[in-house]
């Protein structure tokens, strides 16, 4: 069930490709050496983890723009199981597989 291609979306995708180039090459695009201001250096410690957490939190605890009010939601248990696996064994792949192993039975079996 492929949706049709949207030109605006494609343009943003090319923008994201530009962001990949910009961030990966940030300090060697220009020839002369330069550094970041101190506040920006300090922000680098927190901004990446904050950005990702801000993206995923609503995906885990909200439905249609509202905080869920039930424990009967497969996403909560899957995310908790994934995080537990990460701290036990590490690795993106294992986290995803363990999370999905919890998610699919709850979601498909119990309809959570």
């Amino acid at each position, binding site marked *: *069930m*492929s949706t*049709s*291609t949207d030109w*605006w*979306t*494609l343009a*943003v*995708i*090319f*923008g*994201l*490709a530009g*962001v*990949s*180039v910009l*961030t*990966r090459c*940030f*300090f*060697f695009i220009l*020839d002369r050496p330069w*550094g970041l201001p101190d506040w920006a250096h300090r*922000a*680098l*410690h*927190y*901004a*990446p*983890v*904050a*950005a*990702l*957490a*801000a*993206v*995923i*939190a*609503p*995906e885990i605890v909200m439905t249609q723009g509202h*905080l869920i009010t039930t424990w009967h939601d*497969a*996403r909560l248990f*899957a*995310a908790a199981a*994934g*995080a537990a696996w*990460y*701290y036990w064994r590490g*690795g*993106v*792949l294992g*986290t*995803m597989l363990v*999370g*999905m192993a919890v*998610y*699919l039975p709850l*979601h*498909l079996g119990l309809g959570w």
Partner: protein
Amino acid sequence: MFLSPSVRRLPQFREGARQMAPAALGIGAWGLMTGVAMVKAGLSTLESSAMTLFVYAGSSQLAAIPLFFAGAPAWVILATGFCVNLRFVVFSLHLRPYLMHMPRWRRMLNGYLTADLSYALFTGRYPIPADTPEGRAAQEAYLAGGYFMTWCAWIGMSFVGIALANLIPQSWGLAFAGVLSLVAIVCSMATSRLRVLAALIAGATAVLAYALPLRLNIVVSIGVAVLACFWLEQRLGLDPDKEDDK
């Protein structure tokens, strides 16, 4: 750059590729699930393929998907992608002395293709930038061998995922695999107490501020988390660099 035979002929190219091979399995599997997740979230085959081929950054691809479908404006999606990719800015500072002797297009191509694992493997193998032409060529070949392997694994398996996704019903909710991989990445970045706190504050703020238009809750959350951590650093007299070593 792996397109150039003079780089590929050096023994370090094969060495880099060989040492990357075990990790490439994991990258390939992650690429597979990202391919499935992109299509299941509603991107068209062409859009998903363009994402895979050009963006070439798993976490920023996955972070962009929910924003597309929440109708976020382009600048919010790009700003989120930039923040998610900020770790590469730090890597680029480290890689600068290894690459500055090259012409700009060549160092930018090398930089663009060097993602997390290639960077980690390369700087682990060569802690000090070479200062002879032979040494520099060897280092570039090793770097290229590593990212050649990750590029093939990621791109190849992402396309397999995009192809397979159309066979899987939407109701299975496989797009959630994308969120789960981001859970792992958040855990991997939450290496100090203040970073854990940054993640918690940003997550809670994103939920509380969800009603803001244009998915501005993401931008607000990053700002609130960073400022709160700055304030706590001062308050508790913490040095973030030392915190990171713990």
